[in-house]
């Protein structure tokens, strides 16, 4: 095996997990020197043709058709799929909308927002439709490693990634588990 190939995606979430990962600061350099980052929100590639990957990382819940498709695609192409953060693991703060009808959620977001004038709910063939409910990743595809936290601390993200790169299945110790 050469340099492990890693891809990260950002689904229905705030990108806080990626931010937390970037918070590793100088440690980021040593981690990134050990992997090939093929695809990531940071790279901003628009091409979703994943190569064969060693590690796929998902931040965020499955909230729309695009997330659904990408999750399946990523699962197909990677050996180890990691769910980063509470949104990917449990659905997270996005699940607030799961207690409401989708139409109400869209209307509230695009029409009834206090700052919106003449709002329209965007419908376009290029826009992925919202799912009725946002789901944790493991409700859609099997996940190998779960790293809950909102966001997981940089140390926890590094611990889990380094463990994987070293060929171990990371099981977060009690003090690293956090749901908030």
């Amino acid at each position, binding site marked *: 095996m050469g340099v492990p190939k890693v891809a990260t995606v950002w689904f229905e979430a705030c990108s806080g997990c990626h931010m937390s990962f970037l918070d590793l600061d100088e440690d980021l350099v040593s981690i990134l020197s050990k992997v090939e980052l093929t695809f990531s929100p940071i790279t901003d590639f628009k091409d979703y043709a994943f190569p064969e990957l060693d590690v796929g990382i998902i931040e965020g819940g499955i909230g729309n058709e695009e997330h659904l498709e990408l999750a399946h695609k990523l699962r197909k192409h990677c050996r180890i799929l990691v769910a980063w953060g509470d949104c990917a693991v449990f659905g997270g703060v996005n*699940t607030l909308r799961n207690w409401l009808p989708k139409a109400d959620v869209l209307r509230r977001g695009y029409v009834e927002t206090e700052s919106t004038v003449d709002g329209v709910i965007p419908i376009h063939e290029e826009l992925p439709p919202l799912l009725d409910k946002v789901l944790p990743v493991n409700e859609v595809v099997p996940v190998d490693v779960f790293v809950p936290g909102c966001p997981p601390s940089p140390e926890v993200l590094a611990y889990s990634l380094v463990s994987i790169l070293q060929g171990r299945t990371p099981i977060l110790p009690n003090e690293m588990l956090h749901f*908030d």
Partner: protein
Amino acid sequence: MEANQKTVKIMIDEKELLVQDGITILEAAQRNNIHIPTLCHHPALSNWGGCRMCVVEVDGSPKLAASCVMPVREAMEVVTTNERILESRRTVLEFLFAERNHNCMFCPQSGDCELQTLAYELGMDHLTMSFSFNSFPTDVTSEYMTIDHNRCILCGRCVRACAEIAGTRVLSFHNRGPRNLVGFDLHASRGESTCYGCGVCLQVCPTGAITNRYRTHYAVKGHAKDWVAKESLCTECGLLCPTTSHVHDHTLIKVDGKLSQGNDRPDRGQLCYKGRFEVLKSGGERLVQPMVKGKDGTWKTESWDRSLALVAEKLKSIRRAEGGEALFGLASSALSNEELLQFRDLMVKGCSAGHVGSLDGDHFNAVSKAWELKGEPLKEASWKMIPGADFILLLGADPYQTQPIVSTLLRRAILETGIPVGIAGDMDCMPPYASFQFPLKEEHLPSFIKAFRAEAAEAGKKISKKSKGSVKGKQEAKEVAALVKEAGLAKSAKKAFQEMVSAFVLSTHPLILVGEAVTGLKSPSAFQDAMKLALSKGLVSGNVLRLMVLKPYGNSAGAWKLGLSSNGGSKAKDSWKGGLLCLGHPKDLDSKAMAELGNLDFLGVISPYFPETLADCAHVVLPKPLGLESAGTYTSVDGWETGFVEKVLDPPEGVKDSWETLKSLADQIGFRHKFKTWEDLSQKAQKAIKSWRPASS
């Protein structure tokens, strides 16, 4: 579970243990420092066995047993942890998480949650089943608590606490199956229900289902792990309930009662709405700098030195011109014994003031006179005698307003032992529970108490002569009938009245609780009659009267015994020219004594808050700490105990301790206190309270 002295030999995790027979496996494990996770179990509540978090393997049985309800047995072999047990616990936990909304990141309880802690402990890093996303109501009709059924795991702790500790039985399980939820009364909202807002449910709730509406936001409360827990006593009403106060960044975050089955107090560690919630309320804008009213009537901040000098100068000049008789000093009975004694000394000895008293002083004129009446030192009954009483009479008392935990004990006494309780006066406190209820106006209470005495005397005679079949004399019967009529009782109430009196007469351990509606009466005779009524049933050993006064303030008993609340022969209010007020509680400003302060040449106020309602008549205001912000001793409502309360919070910057303020004033007036240090003052105050005797008439 019935426990006895026999011991049995059991094995827990291959450790041989000798444990008391009859206890549960969980208790045996806990006593030997073996950890078994629990969720629906609470040490202060009865065992439930509902959540199956505490399952263990017993004698290799394929069926796991709930250790919180399974009693130990000779030669029992218990395994507390193996893969099968952990799997079972994790599954239960996952079901709990999946069933309702347990998303920690938008829950105010995160970080202070037993469900969350268990998830971490059991390494639950994801769910293997789908969330239900069922929606349940949220009840925000309480001023104190939010009840979010979406966060409820139906462990039933609140239901048990409400029945077993609060004695209220407002909470119960409603609906069935997946719609099951904990509800108030018969599907009422919190606000409409008969809930008394004690918050014991909140304290035992292991999740965020019942949360405090004060200090909810992260920005205020921070992380639970950063809180400092301080042991203290609640001084709100005089029951001196032990508390644990959680403090973060100079802010009181929450107050917990010391819930347990075995503390030596009949309350089992319950707190009431005052001790748990009211203390978290702000009493207005805190005063952090002395303020002086200018000639144009506007208030301006002033330095401590100048303000103190001004107060001393004004008091001195009034004394010079009009004599000390024209001066008064009024203190709140919420203050500590030390503050009260120092204040009394300053005003009585330092200023020779004509009137020195407490804001609730008028309640004790009647009481102190009654104590004098008997001529020998009697002790008031203790509130701890409530569970042992076999008849309780409330005269003009509203314990829910004054000492809420007393109302809890009464409810529990009624529900658990079925003792008769009679209430005369305000009916708000416990309408559905009492055996005899006489909603009476204040002015009817004296006749009612008289009628009670007369009827009791007659009934007593009748019982003693029962064998001879004698009936009561016509004359006495007429007198009682007239008094009953005078007390405003309807004819239909007469039978209930007689039944109540005969319950009193037949009782061997009666207890009479007298409240503000009686002690606040102008004439002391009603209280004296109540005292005579109590005396008619004899004394408890140690010269203890079968009567207790439910006093208006947290340290009323201290104020009273330090001589601040019994100054009956003081100068009339219209001769007051100037004086000093020492306040300590937000409710001080609502007191009757405040409203009666007329036009004064000078009024100095020492207060934690700016006294808005006194803005017109006061001239100088000096900041002081709140009760929690300084150490002090407080005397229990029955006068039996004096407790030391440590400083829980730091006062805001710029606020001087009352010890310093009062001492500076004394210095400037040219008076020297007999105590040199605060410790000395504290000892003297406690000695004075201990050696208190009723003044002989």
